[in-house]
C-alpha cells in the first residue's frame, strides 16, 4: 500500500467552511492534498467581478493557511449543457427539478473527477455529509452521521465505481463539530455563512432569476373543480404543496398548490394543509441508479426520501420491466413532486434513487399534478 504522503487527494473547494475543513482534515492525516475551485457559472458584472471572486479568494486564503497548492477549473460550459439546460427543460414541463443531484452526477463526480484523475489524483474529496464504506471489493454509501445534514439524497446518482475514488471526510462528523474544528484552526472561513438555495441563483430572487431565462405565462388559478380563485404569474414559479405567494384571501384555512395543468396553463389550488388532493400513495420513477447491485425483479421493502431533509418513509419498490420502478407507500405521503428525486435506503445504506415522474393514488395516475 502507498504511504499517505504519496496518495494524492484533490479536494473540491467551494470557499465554504465544509470544504475548508475537508482539506484541513486530509492534510492533517498526511495526504498529498490539492485544493481546486470549480467555476460553474458566469455572473460577471461590468466591473469584472462575480460571486465566485469572493469564494475563490476564500479558497486561496484557506489553502495558504494549510500550505497546499490551489487551482481553479472552469466547467461553465459543461454545467450549462448538462445541468442548467436540464433545469430549464424540467421547469418548461411544469416539474420541479433538482439541479444539485444533476450537478453531483455530471459535474462534481464526473467532469471534476476526470480533471482530478488527469492531475494524477488517487481520490477526490468533497465536504459532503455522507460516508463511503468499503465492503469486500465494492463501495457503499452511508448516510452522514449528522442526521440533519446528511446529503446522500443529492448523491443518489453516484456509482460504486465513482465511490471507489471518493472521500467524504466530514461524513462521520456533526456540523457543529466541523465549525468547531474550523474555529480552533482559525480558518479564514470559520465564520462564513453556509450558502443556501441553488448555487447559481445564490441570494437572488428565484422568480427574477427564472424570468430571465423562461418566458412567464400568467394564467388562472383554480380549484380542481374549476372555480377561479385568482391569477398565477407563470406555472414555473410554483411547486406542489406551496402556500406562500398565492395571494388568495378570505375565510377558512390557507390555500395550497395541489397541481398544474401545463397544456391549459392552469394552477390548481385547494384549501388546507392536509387537503386530500395533496396526498398520494405511490409513484413511478425513472433514471434509476443503483449504487451497488441492481435489485432483481421482485418487489422489496426499504425506506425512501422524496425531498431533502425529510424523514424516511416506509415503501415497497416494484421494479418494472422498462427499467423504471413503481414505489408504493406504507402511509399516504403529502406533496410528492414530479422532477424531484426519490432516494432509497436500507437502514444507513443509500441504495440509489431516481427521478419522480408519475404520482399514483389508488393505482391510478394523478393527472392534475402535471
Amino acid at each position, binding site marked *: 500500500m502507498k504511504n499517505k504522503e504519496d496518495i494524492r487527494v484533490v479536494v473540491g473547494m467551494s470557499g465554504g467552511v465544509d470544504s475548508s475543513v475537508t482539506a484541513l482534515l486530509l492534510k492533517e492525516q498526511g495526504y498529498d492534498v490539492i485544493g481546486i475551485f470549480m467555476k460553474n457559472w458566469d455572473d460577471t458584472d461590468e466591473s469584472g467581478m462575480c460571486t465566485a471572486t469572493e469564494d475563490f479568494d476564500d479558497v486561496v486564503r484557506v489553502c495558504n493557511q494549510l500550505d497546499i497548492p490551489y487551482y481553479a477549473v472552469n466547467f461553465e460550459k459543461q454545467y450549462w449543457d448538462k445541468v442548467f439546460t436540464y433545469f430549464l427543460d424540467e421547469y418548461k414541463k411544469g416539474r420541479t427539478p433538482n439541479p444539485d443531484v444533476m450537478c453531483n452526477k455530471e459535474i462534481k463526480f464526473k467532469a471534476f473527477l476526470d480533471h482530478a484523475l488527469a492531475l*494524477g489524483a488517487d481520490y477526490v474529496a468533497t465536504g459532503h455529509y455522507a460516508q463511503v464504506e468499503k465492503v469486500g471489493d465494492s463501495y457503499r454509501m452511508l448516510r452522514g452521521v449528522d442526521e440533519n445534514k446528511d446529503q446522500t439524497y443529492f448523491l443518489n446518482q453516484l456509482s460504486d465505481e465513482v465511490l471507489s475514488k471518493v472521500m467524504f471526510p466530514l461524513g462521520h462528523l456533526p456540523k457543529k463539530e466541523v465549525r468547531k474544528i474550523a474555529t480552533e484552526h482559525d480558518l479564514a472561513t470559520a465564520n462564513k455563512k453556509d450558502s443556501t438555495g441553488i448555487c447559481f441563483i445564490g441570494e437572488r430572487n428565484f422568480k427574477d432569476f427564472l424570468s430571465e431565462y423562461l418566458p412567464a405565462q400568467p394564467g388562472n388559478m383554480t380549484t380542481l373543480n374549476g372555480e377561479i380563485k385568482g391569477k398565477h404569474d407563470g406555472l414555473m414559479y410554483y411547486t406542489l404543496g406551496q402556500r406562500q405567494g398565492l395571494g388568495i384571501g378570505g375565510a377558512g384555512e390557507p390555500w395550497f398548490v395541489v397541481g398544474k395543468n401545463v397544456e391549459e396553463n392552469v394552477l390548481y389550488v385547494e384549501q388546507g394543509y392536509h387537503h386530500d388532493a395533496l396526498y398520494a400513495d405511490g409513484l413511478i420513477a425513472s433514471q434509476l441508479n443503483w449504487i451497488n447491485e441492481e435489485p432483481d425483479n421482485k418487489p422489496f421493502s426499504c425506506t425512501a426520501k422524496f425531498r431533502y431533509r425529510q424523514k424516511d418513509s416506509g415503501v415497497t419498490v416494484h421494479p418494472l420491466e422498462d427499467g423504471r420502478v413503481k414505489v408504493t407507500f406504507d402511509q399516504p405521503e403529502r406533496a410528492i413532486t414530479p422532477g424531484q428525486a426519490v432516494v432509497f435506503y436500507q437502514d444507513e445504506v443509500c441504495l440509489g434513487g431516481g427521478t419522480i415522474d408519475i404520482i399514483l393514488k389508488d393505482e391510478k395516475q394523478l393527472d392534475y399534478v402535471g
Partner: protein
Amino acid sequence: MKQIYLDHAATTPMDPAVIDEMTDSLKNLYGNPSSIHSFGRKARQALDKVRRTTAKVIGADEKEVTFTSGGTEANNLALIGTAFRNKSKGNHIITTKIEHHAVLHAAEYLEKNGFRVTYLDVDKDGMLDVEKLKASLTQETILVSVMMVNNETGVFQPISEIGQLIKDHQAYFHTDAVQALGLTNIHVDNLSVDLLTVSSHKINGPKGLGVLYVKKGTKLDSRQHGGEQERKRRPGTENVAGIIGFGKALEIAEEKKQVRKETYLSFKELFLKILDKNEISYYINGSKNNTIEHIINLSFPGTNVESLLTNFDLEGIAASSGSACSAGSVEPSHVLVSMYGSENSRIINSIRFSFGLANDLSQVELAANKIAKIVKRLTK
C-alpha cells in the same frame, strides 16, 4: 522536486547585484530626495544618476523620464493623462485589442468618460497592420497607443512605422514597451513616440517601479496630486530603493543584452527541438521570425489550459496563459482571440513559456521533456 521557472514574462527574479545596491540604499539613503540638507541631497543624487542612465538607454532627455509605481501606473498616466488634457482637440483614441489590460482597461475608462476608442485587431501572425491604423485616424484622434512587444506572444509591433505615419498628425503616440526592455533597442526618436512605458520587474529589477517617458512639450494631466516630485506629473515621495534597483537592473540588462538574446534564442530552439523529438504536435502562436527571443506561445491541440498549467505546476514547471479571471479560472486570452477568433481551439489550449535569468540549458531540457510527457498523457 526541482522547480523550473518559465514565466519570466510575468515577472523575473532579481539580479543579486540589484539586491546589493538596494540593500545598501535602504541602509544608507534614507533621506527624502526633496529635502535641502545633505541627507536629502545624497538620495537625490542617486535618483539623478538613474534618471540619466534611463534617459541614455532610451535616447531621451533626463527631464523626460518620470518614475511611477510600475507599468500599470505609467500606462494609465499616459492614456488618461493625455486624453483628459487634450480633449479640446478631439475625443478619439486608437489602440489595439492585444494591449495589456493596463492600457485596455484605461481605454475603457476613457470610453465611460466620453471618449471614443477604436480597438484594432491583429492578423494571424499577431501583428498590427499599419494600413488599418491609417484608415482609422481621424481629425478627432488625439492619442494612439500600441504596444512594442506583445506580452503573450512576444510578437513585435511596427512601432517606428506607426511613428512615421502619425508624426505629422496631432495625435500623441504612446507605446507600452514593458515587454521589450532589456532585449530590444529602444530609442524614442527612432520610434517617433511621445510617450513610452517600461517596468523594472520585467528586467530583474524590483517590483513597484516603472517609467513613463514623456517627450518634451507633451501635455498631460497628472493622475494624482500632491508635491512637486517628478515635475508634478507624479507627485509623492520617490521610491528611492526601487529606483536605484531599477537603475542597476537596467545597466546590467544593457550590458548583457546581446548575450542574453543569443542565450534565450538557444533555449527556445532547444525547447522546440525536444518537443519535436518527442513527436508532440503543437502550433506556434504568432509570427515565427518577428518575435522577441525569450517568449514562445504554443498551442497543444487536444488539451486544455487549466489541465496543462495545473499538471505543469504539480511537476514543478511554472508557465502561464491568457489571464486568470478574478475567480481563478483561466479566461481565454484576448490576444489569441484577436488573432484567431473566439471559436478557435487555440484560445483554450495555448501556453506561454518565457525564459530568463532563472534558466539554464539543462533546466530547459528537463522542462521540455516533462512537458512532452504531460502533453502526451493528456492527449492519449
